[in-house]
């Protein structure tokens, strides 16, 4: 259950790091412009990062360089110094050698939202935030939106106007019915030849067998994959009290559900599903983060970077 405990720790860490209240997603969603929302999140994140013990991280660790006077002593690698008794400065990649592809699920199930924002809005804002953040760092960002088929594809680029195009594509409402990862993954595998970072944002509401198969195919291509499993708080707990006809927004099927009686079984089945996804991700080396739409987006960004950092450590450890 380590996975479940992680977001809580991250929240605390992020709160402690920023020292200012995080922006509630509901408040954030009141900003109509997606780009502006992304900027608010990222700037808020940067703003807090100055006081954070984790500041100075970049997305891509590049190399060690021998210390020379005048270098910022904050980037000295003390652990390396302890091992080698020499001063080394950690050098981060500032160039656009990171390609990130944001894969955003836009199926009908993403249009569900029990709170102020839907999962789709949240996913779009998250994708926009990541794109903006990476863009600021000079990384190339691409976008692929999909439901049961691919709706939009923007190749990863870093050039003026690209971010704007990306935002416009993200603002399109969800239209598809089902969630099918196979088609977008196949497209990505076929298109993206260079090693890239693939960020998948989806609610993963589909049969676990198919999902696992698709994720395996993705991981097998050698890309670095990170999965944001996005869920609505009401989906997690089935927090309704009225017995009503529940209509599946994807299939249109209707069933009469009394939440009081159905809740226990539902939560059990959902948790089992989530756990299966999580296990699959761990087995495949896919970074897994579960998000709920009430979680501040700064924390999601923080999760992203943290995941990147932990992955970096793992790589270093493996290299060392």
């Amino acid at each position: 259950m380590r996975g479940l405990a992680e977001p809580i720790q991250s929240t605390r860490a992020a709160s402690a790091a920023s020292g200012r209240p995080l922006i509630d997603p509901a408040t954030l969603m009141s900003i109509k412009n997606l780009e502006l929302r992304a900027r608010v999140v990222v700037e808020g994140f940067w703003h807090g990062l100055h006081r954070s013990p984790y500041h100075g991280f970049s997305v891509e660790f590049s190399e060690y360089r021998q210390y020379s006077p005048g270098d910022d002593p904050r980037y000295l690698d003390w652990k390396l110094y302890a091992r080698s008794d020499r001063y080394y400065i950690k050098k981060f990649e500032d160039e656009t050698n990171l390609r990130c592809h944001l894969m955003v699920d836009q199926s009908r199930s993403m249009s569900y939202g029990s709170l102020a924002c839907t999962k789709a809005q949240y996913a779009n804002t998250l994708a926009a935030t990541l794109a903006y953040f990476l863009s600021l760092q000079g990384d190339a960002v691409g976008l692929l939106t999909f439901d049961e088929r691919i709706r939009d594809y923007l190749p990863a680029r870093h050039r003026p106007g690209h971010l704007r195009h990306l935002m416009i594509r993200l603002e399109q409402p969800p239209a598809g019915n089902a969630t099918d990862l196979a088609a977008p993954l196949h497209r990505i595998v076929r298109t993206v030849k260079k090693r890239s970072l693939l960020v998948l944002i989806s609610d993963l509401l589909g049969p676990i067998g198919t999902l696992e198969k698709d994720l395996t195919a993705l991981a097998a291509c050698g890309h670095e994959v990170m999965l944001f499993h996005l869920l609505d708080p009401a989906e997690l707990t089935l927090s309704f009290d009225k017995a009503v006809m529940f209509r599946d927004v994807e299939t249109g099927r209707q069933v009469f559900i009394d939440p009081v009686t159905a809740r226990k079984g539902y939560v059990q089945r959902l948790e089992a599903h989530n756990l299966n996804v999580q296990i699959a991700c761990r087995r495949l080396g896919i970074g897994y983060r579960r998000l709920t739409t009430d979680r501040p987006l700064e924390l999601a960004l923080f999760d992203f970077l943290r995941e990147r950092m932990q992955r970096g450590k793992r790589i270093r450890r493996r290299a060392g």
Partner: protein
Amino acid sequence: MSFLAPLFLIGTLAVALPVVFHLVRRSSKEHMPFSSIMFLQPAPPRVTKRSRLEHILLLLLRCLVVCLLALAFSRPFFQRPMTASPLPEATGRAVVVLVDTSASMKREGLWAQALDRVDAALKQTGPGDQLEVLIFDRRVRTVVSFEQWNQMDIGQRAALTLARISDIKPGWSSTQLGGALIAAAESFAEADKEGRNLGRRQIILISDMQEGARLDGLQGYEWPRGTEVQVEPVEPKRPTNAGVQWLAANDDSANAGTNLVARIRVSNSANATREQFKLHWADIPGAAPSDVYVPPGQSRIVPAPPLPANAIGERLVLTGDDDDFDNTVYVLQPQAEHVSVLFAGDEPENDPAQPFYYLKRAFQPTSREIVEVTARGSSAELTPTDLAGARLLVAANNLPDSRMTALQTFMAGGGTVLFVMTNASVAGDVGRLADADGFTADEITAPNYALLGMVDFNHPIFAPFADARFNDFTKIHFWKYRRVDASKLPGARVLAKFDSGDPAFLEIPRGNGRLLVLTSGWQPADSQLAVSTKFVPLLCSILDLSGGIHSTLAQFHIGDEVDLASLTPAAITSSLSVRKPDGAVVQLAAGETRFSDTDLPGIYAVTSLQPAVRFAVNLDGAESRTAMLPADELQRLGVPMKAREIAVSAQIEQKRRLHDSELEDRQKLWRWLTLTALMVLLGETFVAGWLTRRTAVQTGAQS
């Protein structure tokens, strides 16, 4: 508290409905979109626990409404003791017991049942009751009148009356039920006239209520007030009854001399269980029976079975049904009558220019009659025998003096002479026959042609032509005729006139007979009369008037009055005696020709006539229709039927119910209950509205 319709109290069980509805959690029609229902299990609406009953006040109000409505429908009322006596008052009755003695009552066991019913009716009479017993078939006869009943000793009344009626047996007559019922009602009226104090009036009809009973007169009869008819039907043990009827041949179309095959109608009763019967001649050895198939309720007309050569069958018998009373029919073959018509004249038979040619051919022999037209030339004598056998004498030319006397004698004796004036010179003969000396005629040749302008259709000769279909004489053109002065003929009656106003046909009564004068001949030289369609009917009509043709209908029904004079052409001079089928001889009074003692089926013979005249008397065919009358037939005809007697306990119960109904109607508690239910419903609506508003406010506050 009592209830008029307590079964409606079961409706209070419906109080369970609001309770169940309150227990059932309302399943919302609301739809909630959800991202995916793949982890959800459908659940039926569930019933909350009893302890979770919501809105108790509403529930109570709804239950109250149901109870009040059930109570209102059960028509409650407060019981009060009955004041009137529940038993009907017992008063003296006037009872007419009407017993059917028609032929159909001869069926097995019916008469015994009828006597039992009479006995039962007699036993029900009280000392204050008055009783009359009538029997009826075609006529109504009194067995015991009210007066005789009152004169009897009270203790002996029933026994004496039963003894009298036990002596009676059903006859052979048909059933006149309508007349009998009216006669029974009239007997009450007669008793009233005599000042006898009658109480409740009751007619007890004991009959087999057969379908063939005649109900004439009932339709428009106004029944005396207070009269009621109680029917006590007697039923046969075995229902199948087939009857036979002889369809007497009354037509003249058959050729003379042919032996007519008797046609028999075999009818089967509607409730019969058998449909195959056999018909055979009785008393004829070697006569083969014939099979007859008649479905129930239908009739078939079949020829009588063939007879052996030279055998004469008079009694046909039907076998195969349950009752024999109507299975025998008596048949008489009709005998053609010989009628003689004399023509006084020398005309050759085969000269078509002469009237005799047409007269000879006018009368064709038929099965009923054979008319022989004989010419008597002036050289031949008209013997008294000739005249006695003749019914009509036709003259067309001058008559010798010797014949004048004979003709006058013939007319005086009732004969008819038709004088056809073929020329003006015969006027003198006509005058002499009519006792009008100096009677003359003028020969008239019509410039174009003459027509019959006036015909007296009231006269028996022209009466058959009175119908609009036959009264057109304009097709007969007269070229020549003789103008005569009718006023010069004493007592002459002009039966037809030409369009010029001159008489064409006259009748002069002479003694018992008559002289008919036709002022134009029928031969082609004078007119078209002989070749017209009116010629033969006219001659037949004249012959009929002159007593030449007699009714040969020799079949009568039981009870019919038979005019014996119509059966024989001979004059009846002496008193008649009739031998009945049972061998008894009935002597009629002198001059009496009507015989009414036809009370037995069979062949009757008038023995005093030579040759003996015979006629058959059969059962009325309606008697064979023995199926029961429809139950409501009498009621439909306005007969005041008595409702079935109900037991005293049932009467008390009926009375009590009536009393309860009146009480409930007076108190009308159901109205108040319904009003209260409506008020409670209003209150319920108010409370429900208030609760809904409160819930809405709370929900709003929570959200």
